[in-house]
């Protein structure tokens, strides 16, 4: 029962998205303060804002481009083993991935400086990010074995996974340089709670015709798994103080790193706007609670070999133990506590937006129905915006991209919506919808992605959800 639950959780949690971290709905949604985390150079017209602790921002994304829950567990009368063989073992490629991202804001706030062109924002959020590529050859080896697969190489490089849980302390500055250009930067301190990565593996396992014996098995491996924090949490589990250990490691008691976000907004004119940002240019240095495992070497075996007369020299020779020892010496499995550095999954966003609905310096003269009362006139809000966005993230097997077309519509000064259509290598049918509601100073936003999949959520390869609450002030600066 536990195994079944675990499998379900893994598939649902690791198995619902592959474009983890693409927040195309949130990006450049200027009514929502959290959009500053995606572009520190975003247009802002808030005087100050404060996120409601732990409720200001929650985003969950999970998925797999190669597999959905429905693929395996649909009550369709098909043999489950055939489905696993067809959809997973044979159906998925080593480039297919399972990934998930969770981000929970613990604290978030911002305020405008005495210099009204400068806006500061700061906060703390917890994040987990896991990505695992489908280890196809390991799957074939486990499901079918190596029998009758002469000269077929099982690529050990198919093992490619990494994951981390960390908290991020950040402080950002957003400055309007002139009427056309806004620049922003955000400094970050990462406090890693736990980390694991096994991303640069090479080698193979192969069965060939033997030279002496019938078959020869060759293992050539250069593999490593690096971890930090996991053994600290295991120890805490034994001691019964896991929460305290996680909190401690999340508040500078773990491994630390530094990062930087950069962003800009540029107005070609009042209606045409270009934005861009580069996020998480940073690293974490893991020196605390580190545990690494390596398998490095090459060995070929044809079983126990007894060749006379040499074997007569030592009649008590333990051929089996000698063989095991020889292989272990040739391909040693070692454990180290050597420090290591990881680089954050850097992300790039860019967008080109066209605003329409006549607008003037005086909102009252605008024929649009959006009037940002209480706000300054140097940022004009148009009733409609349309445009395209680009997203690229650095992943272990190279950059992954997505393009998005969006339409944004504002209804009075109490609601703004954004609809997106996103295309990437995983799906051509990702339609998302985001809404920001303003009730006095209370701002509530809600975003959901891949809405077409809600026709059968179990068949979805991807699901994402974002929610948050803020208190915003637009008092005269």
């Amino acid at each position: 029962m536990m195994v079944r639950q675990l499998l379900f959780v893994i598939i649902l949690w690791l198995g619902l998205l592959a474009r983890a971290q693409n927040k195309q709905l949130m990006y450049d949604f200027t009514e929502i303060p959290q959009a500053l985390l995606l572009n520190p150079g975003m247009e802002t017209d808030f005087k100050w804002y404060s996120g409601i602790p732990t409720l200001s921002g929650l985003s969950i994304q999970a998925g797999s481009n190669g597999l959905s829950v429905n693929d395996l567990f649909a009550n369709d009368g098909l043999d489950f083993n055939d489905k696993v063989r067809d959809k997973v073992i044979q159906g998925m490629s080593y480039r297919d991935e399972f990934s998930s991202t969770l981000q929970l804001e613990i604290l978030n706030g911002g305020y405008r400086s005495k210099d009204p062109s400068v806006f500061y924002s700061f906060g703390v959020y917890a994040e987990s990010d896991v990505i695992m590529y489908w280890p196809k050859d390991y799957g074939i080896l486990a499901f079918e074995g190596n029998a009758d697969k002469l000269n077929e190489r099982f690529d050990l490089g198919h093992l490619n996974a990494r994951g981390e849980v960390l908290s991020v302390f950040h402080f950002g500055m957003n400055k309007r340089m002139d009427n056309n250009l806004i620049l922003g930067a955000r400094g970050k301190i990462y406090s890693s709670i736990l980390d694991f990565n096994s991303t640069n593996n090479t080698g193979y396992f192969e069965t060939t015709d033997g030279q002496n014996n019938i078959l020869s098995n060759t293992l050539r491996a250069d593999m490593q798994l690096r971890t930090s924090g996991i053994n600290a949490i295991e120890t805490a589990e034994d001691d019964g103080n896991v929460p305290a250990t996680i909190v401690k490691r999340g508040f500078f008691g773990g491994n630390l790193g530094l990062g930087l976000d950069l962003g800009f907004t540029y107005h070609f004119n009042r209606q045409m706007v270009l934005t861009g940002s580069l996020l998480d240019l940073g690293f974490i240095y893991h020196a605390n609670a580190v545990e690494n495992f390596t398998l490095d070497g090459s060995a070929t075996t044809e079983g126990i070999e007894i060749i006379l007369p040499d074997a007569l020299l030592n009649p008590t020779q333990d051929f089996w133990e000698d063989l095991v020892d020889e292989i272990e010496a040739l391909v040693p499995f070692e454990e180290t506590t050597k420090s290591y550095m990881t680089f954050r999954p850097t992300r790039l966003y860019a967008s080109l937006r066209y605003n329409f609905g006549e607008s003037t310096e005086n909102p009252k003269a605008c024929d649009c129905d959006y009037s940002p009362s209480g706000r300054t006139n140097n940022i004009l809000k148009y009733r409609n915006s349309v445009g395209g966005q680009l997203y690229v993230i650095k992943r272990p097997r190279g950059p992954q991209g997505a393009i998005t077309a969006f339409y944004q519509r504002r209804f009075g000064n109490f609601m703004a919506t954004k609809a997106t259509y996103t295309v990437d290598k995983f799906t051509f049918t990702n339609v998302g919808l985001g809404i920001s509601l303003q009730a006095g100073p209370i701002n509530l936003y809600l975003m959901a992605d891949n809405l077409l999949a809600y026709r059968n959520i179990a068949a979805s390869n991807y699901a994402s959800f974002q929610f948050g609450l803020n208190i915003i002030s637009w008092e005269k600066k």
Partner: protein
Amino acid sequence: MKKIRTYFWFVCSLLLMLSCMEEQDFDQYDDLSITPTFEASILFLEVPERTINLISGLNTYSQSFNFDAFAEDIFSERVLEGVLTYQIENTTSKPLEIIIEFLDEAGVVLDTEMFQIDPEPIAILHREIAYGPTGKSIDIIRNTSGITLTAINLGDNTSTSSQPNALISLKSTGKFTVRLK
């Protein structure tokens, strides 16, 4: 704050209610059967004719040795069936007998395989022994912890083969299906 939470859960519930999901049957996981088949060489024995001739008066070579490959828990608790394949090639001038005995941890013989092979020019013997539902008891494999290998010269110690590099060789592989799930 309470109102906000209520609103949040209301929205989540609405989203879930509006979504649909075809009937799923997670009990299918119980039907999953993972039974890969692995194969590898097990034992290689080589005795040149000149070595046989060197040991005059002693026509039997016997060696018992530890063989825990089958006794490892990860294998013995999961093995379902398998085949041991032997290939014996004799290019010496002597008829030979080879006996392979599988022993348990206490040294008790669990199974014996005997091969008699003719002398040159080239005698090749190929034999496959199945273990499991269609063959001998798989418990022989599960409980094997050692092997005794005996080679008996049924000829003389003086004759020489007309074949170059005359020798007798025993090759063997194991091909076993194990249950991982």
